[in-house]
């Protein structure tokens, strides 16, 4: 696995100085991404999943942000790299697709020109050649009449088509790592299915590593090879998609799995919600960040559990929970399915 490794994030910390104090958005996050692998980061809003990936792109840099730890893309550091070095990498080696395609495209420039601009920022090619490439990319991601559509403005596209333009732009320089931050959240299900197919196919073809940020566990089950579960700025569990769905170790993961509505099953009388709210990230969080909402918390949870393998049969499956795996197997049962509690109150 080491040989195919593209990206290694180690002990990444991101905090922002705000009027209310230091917000610790990401604390001690470590993970790797290998060639041709789709790594999904799941978690609620505010869990730090977007900050993590934006930091990889150098998009969280500001006078108020503080960083620690490292993120190496084929040896090149992304966290401390000077802006100039980052500019050479960004777009070329690591590219990002954002959630909201309308606000990530310039409204006053034709989409073809925007893709051309990106290509020409990194490579010495003529405008015409760059445009040819843009058109080719656009048709590859399923935009009909690409040559003609390249002359259109973003508002002339539907949401799904705009997201395809974003994907075409992200792929324009064949990056080795593609970050997709909730790329289908704003889209309809039938279009989401098309875009997911597109991303899956492209990652297989180009052998790029994909980091897929989402809150939708259905999408995770569909696209991911490995899953990272984030809560309050920390990784609380990580494993293969099967490990996370069939043998989840962290109570927060149980809660997430339990609160999903399934279209193919009769719904329970009451949806099992996770009680309470995520904690504030201002200041230091003592102990397990999930403990205030966790019905299984006990004394030891005042101390932060390390992210470690706790199952001898699955060395790659890491979690942050003090409970014994055998206890967890019993406690995560909620009405015949996995859940935090049975039909918890709202």
């Amino acid at each position, binding site marked *: 696995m080491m040989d195919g490794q593209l990206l290694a994030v180690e002990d990444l910390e991101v905090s922002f100085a705000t009027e209310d104090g230091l917000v610790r958005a990401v604390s001690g996050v470590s993970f790797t991404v290998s060639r041709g692998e789709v790594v999904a980061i799941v978690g*609620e809003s505010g869990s730090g999943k977007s900050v993590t990936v934006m930091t990889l792109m150098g998009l969280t840099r500001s006078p108020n942000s503080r960083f620690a730890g490292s993120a190496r893309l084929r040896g090149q550091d992304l966290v401390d790299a000077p802006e100039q070095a980052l500019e050479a990498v960004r777009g070329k080696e690591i590219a990002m697709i954002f959630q909201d395609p309308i606000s990530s495209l310039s409204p006053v420039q034709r989409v073809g020109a925007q893709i051309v601009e990106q290509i020409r920022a990194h490579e010495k090619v003529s405008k015409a050649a760059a445009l040819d490439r843009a058109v080719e990319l656009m048709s590859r991601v399923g935009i009909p009449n690409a040559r003609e559509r390249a002359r259109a403005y973003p508002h002339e596209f539907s949401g799904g*088509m705009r997201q395809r333009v974003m994907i075409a732009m992200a792929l324009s320089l064949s990056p080795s790592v593609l970050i997709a931050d909730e790329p289908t959240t704003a889209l309809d*299900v039938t279009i989401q299915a098309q875009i997911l197919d597109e991303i899956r196919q492209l990652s297989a073809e180009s052998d790029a590593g994909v980091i897929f940020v989402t809150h939708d566990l259905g999408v995770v*089950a569909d696209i991911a090879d490995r899953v990272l579960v984030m809560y309050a700025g920390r990784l609380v569990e990580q494993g293969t998609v099967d490990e996370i*769905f069939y043998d989840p170790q962290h109570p927060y993961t149980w809660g997430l799995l339990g609160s999903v509505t399934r279209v193919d099953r009769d719904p329970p009388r009451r949806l099992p919600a996770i009680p309470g709210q995520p904690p504030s990230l201002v200041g230091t969080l003592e102990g397990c960040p999930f403990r205030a909402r966790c019905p299984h918390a006990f004394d030891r949870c005042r101390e932060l559990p390390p992210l470690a393998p706790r199952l001898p049969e699955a060395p790659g499956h890491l979690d942050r929970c003090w409970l014994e795996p055998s206890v967890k197997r019993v406690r995560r049962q909620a009405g015949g399915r996995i859940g935090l509690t049975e039909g918890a109150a709202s």
Partner: protein
Amino acid sequence: MTENDTIVARPQADGQQPLLQAEHVQLLFPVRSGDLIGRTIGHVHAVDDVSLSLAEGQTLGIVGESGCGKSTLARCLVRLLEPTGGALRFRGADVTHLSRKPLRPLRREIQLVFQDPVASLNPRKRVGQIVGTPMRVHGMKRGDVSARVRELLQRVGLNPEHVNRFPHEFSGGQRQRIGVARALATSPRLIVLDEPVSALDVSIQAQVINLLDDLQDELGLSYVFIAHDLSVVRHFSDQIAVMYLGKFMEVSPAAELYSKPIHPYTEALLSAIPIPDPRENRDRQRRVVSGEPPNPILPPSGCRFHTRCPRATDICREAEPPLAEYASGHLAACHHPLSVSPTEIAAAKRSPLSPLSASPLMPSGREEAAPGTPLPGAPRVTAGPSGSPDGQDAPPQ
């Protein structure tokens, strides 16, 4: 919630009068030419001849992709928009073209909860003002307002001490609760929920859905629940309508829609939703519908789904299918229905909710065996991401 009290209740349903009825409601937005004269050069068919009927205490789910007209329909139902055709009745009274003032009493009874909990709350107003405004508008005394605001905040699971906070001090889920509290302010009978949980995290979604569920049980509210996602509406709808390009494609008792989708579009929607179970997902042959919804200014002839439908034949291009009523009040507008036997097809009647423009042709059931059309039980084919089987692509922009 009586068993047979389906929304298919006829205009003159015996006994109980439906709370809300829409009869062939149509809303066309004019498209003007860009020149000086600004002639009308076409219409966006946002809602095109939709009929429905909602009984007291019931929930109607309306599902469809963006641009299908579901939000426009919601705005028609609460009369924020005036339909350009058809009639809307609330408790039997025609409210289709009422002007601002006579609408006031109706506003009290029908409320709307918006999708975006950030944009739908005024950032400069305190929560107390936001929730209290509808009461003041409807003439409640100042002293009573503040007591009622606190009571409502408590009811929706917020701390009543927070009346003086601003919306930005709340999380998304809490803001949606403020939106719900505001909707409850005038003690309405019907709340139209326009994607109330789409902007929320899953764990918070469940909290808000449970809250809406409790409120319905407690206050006997009726809901129209708009969603783009079939898995969310499943939870508390009695009836679900699937909308496509301004028309209802299928209207079904909630559970039956999932076990027995009749319209190919419904089936496509169902199969597009990823199941949160990796193994089942891998085993499932998904039918990815190609293309995008066509332009609503020039909707396709005949069945509006025919440009993307894997089962479409000539008749679909020529004749608009009526809503056929199958057993248990399950309606579907399709010439080649899925999941129904020839006997069921033969027994189907034309529903009075059918669009006026629909052809008299009812599904014959014989096409089932026609060459080229997959049988209901046949293995599903996954169509490629572009280009539908018959070469019909999305129509020109």
